[in-house]
């Protein structure tokens, strides 16, 4: 029988106590893995959401609502325009990779709902926009067949509300102009779901807005300094620059505060688990005072006793760590639901991304706790004097 088997059997002698200590350690490991997984998953999901915008910077005319929700809020009014020559100006910037021109138009539809409503259209450049938003997938059909055609691509929710499918017709209210639906996008979870996309040239023609834009999406080169690009764009006349990098930073700042609080809780949980381990092993040492004395009197050296007790602690921590990691993997969905309920904003996608690195780091941390926690009880056990301990049996 080797030292590991002896240590394991010793732990089994007090099943409930060992089990509770194991549970304490596994809960700490669970919290730690979930937290590290959240740290990784949240940032990844947030980056994905930002990347799904297709461009990092949006240039619009000063005071112009830059997305459909704001436009609706303003009752479809308040649009400001910039000339399409700005596209070439921005494209000349050395750090800019791609640009895409956009024109947003809104029209009052008296038959939408019971008292009318606003319908918004987004004119896009069929050559650059689909490239920039290559992640958009189609439920039916595809992008426009003609860059100046009377065609529309509908976001999933618009299509569902309007019961449109590829091949159907849709009507621009008031103008009474028919558009042929050529594609239905799959659900994205973004504002694209509620957007009606039309070739920009067509929309300019229909609304008499030739040469005018409401926004330009800018994708900067990889490793480019977005802040510098933004500063340069601010120098363009009568434009406002909306940076999604800023939006991301604000959200990350908010989340960092929340994460610090959770990390503190995790630290407390780990300290409690550590004290639990020390207590359990120390109790076990005191209970086996005579037994340790007998072992030593038949030839065991202090280092042998030290190792035995130390190994017990390490086994307990290793098992607890494995159990905690299993909990965190199995219950990651539940953890995610809890996080989504607690946080004011959560991006789409998986929030708790546990990988092998996180599992290894946690195991290392728990093992470290085991090694440190076992030192004192093992030292106490190693110091037991055989005669004193045997004599104490009768006392």
């Amino acid at each position: 029988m080797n030292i590991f088997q002896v240590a394991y059997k010793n732990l089994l002698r007090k099943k409930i106590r060992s089990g509770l200590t194991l549970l304490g350690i596994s809960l700490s490991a669970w919290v730690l893995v979930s937290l590290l997984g959240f740290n990784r998953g949240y940032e990844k999901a947030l980056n994905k959401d930002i990347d799904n915008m297709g461009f990092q910077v949006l240039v619009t005319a000063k005071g112009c609502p830059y997305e459909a929700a704001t436009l609706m809020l303003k009752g479809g009014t308040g649009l400001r325009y910039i000339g399409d020559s700005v596209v070439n100006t921005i494209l000349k910037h050395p750090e800019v990779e791609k640009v895409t021109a956009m024109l947003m138009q809104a029209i009052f539809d008296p038959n939408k709902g019971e008292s009318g409503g606003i319908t918004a259209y987004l004119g896009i450049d069929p050559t650059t926009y689909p490239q920039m938003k290559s992640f958009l997938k189609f439920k039916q059909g595809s992008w426009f067949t003609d860059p100046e055609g009377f065609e529309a691509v509908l976001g999933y929710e618009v299509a569902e509300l309007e019961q449109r499918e590829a091949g159907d017709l849709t009507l621009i209210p008031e103008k009474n102009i028919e558009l042929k639906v050529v594609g239905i996008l799959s659900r994205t979870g973004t504002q694209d779901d509620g957007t009606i996309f039309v070739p920009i040239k067509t929309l300019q023609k229909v609304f008499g807005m030739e040469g005018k834009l409401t926004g330009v999406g800018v994708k900067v080169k990889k490793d480019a300094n977005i802040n510098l690009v933004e500063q340069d764009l601010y120098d363009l006349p009568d434009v406002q620059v909306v940076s999604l990098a800023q939006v991301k930073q604000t959200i990350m700042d908010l989340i960092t505060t929340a994460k610090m609080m959770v990390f503190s809780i995790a630290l407390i949980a780990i300290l409690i688990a550590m004290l639990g381990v020390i207590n359990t092993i120390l109790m076990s040492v005191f209970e086996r005072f005579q037994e340790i004395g007998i072992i030593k009197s038949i030839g065991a050296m202090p280092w042998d006793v030290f190792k035995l007790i130390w190994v017990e602690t390490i086994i307990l921590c290793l098992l607890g760590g494995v159990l905690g990691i299993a909990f965190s993997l199995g219950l990651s969905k539940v953890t995610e639901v809890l996080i989504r309920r607690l946080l004011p904003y959560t991006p789409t996608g998986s929030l708790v991304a546990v990988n092998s690195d996180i599992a290894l780091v946690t195991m290392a941390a728990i093992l470290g706790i085991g090694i440190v926690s076992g030192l004192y009880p093992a030292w106490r056990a190693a110091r037991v004097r055989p005669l004193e301990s045997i004599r104490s049996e009768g006392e």
Partner: protein
Amino acid sequence: MNNRRIFLNILSLYLLLYLAAWPLLAAVGCDLNDPDRDVKRLFPESTGYKTIYVSIAQRGGENLLRQIEQRLGDSFKGLFETIDVPYTMYQIFRGKELIGYIHGVNQKGQYGGIQVFLALDLEGDIRAFYFQKLTSQYAKSLRDASFGQQFIGLNLKDFYHYDIVSGQTAGQSRVVLIKNPAPEAEPDFRATLRATKKNLILVDEFLLGNKYLKFSPKEQDHNEYLPSGL
């Protein structure tokens, strides 16, 4: 044995939480825009209402879908008319007494979605008809009160004689009296009649306990082959 039971309880709880966390990707239903206001408008004598959510998938699956399609005389089509569409049904109360129902359905029109809402009495007779949403060039004529009034008093028995595919009405159905207010609006007019028939069938299936099933043409054909006395 006890340990096993505890383990099973924990497992069930975990599965329940896991399923609750699963993202819901069901199709869109058709709700009243402002239920408090709309219920009071359609049933001024009402004091309250209860909302029920049902779907064909939940209540009977493929077999029920076949039965509904048979009664409708047309199949469910396209991306959005599917077995998992949740239908929102409103039971209307005066005090504790049930006095009627309100139900709306989405229907594909020529240029966009149409939402047809019906207010029904306990017998399944239409007491009010209105479009909550209508994308049509001829929306003004179709939304005119006189158009909706033509549906009042009709029930599913009348609509059984209306053939959705051909747009023809057989026999002495009162549906034949419903006039299209604008001849150019024929596709949306027919879509409206289809939506009304579908709406009435769904209410019969989910709220009236299939009161009108026996009047369904298919059912009557079937009855002809039954021995007399049954």
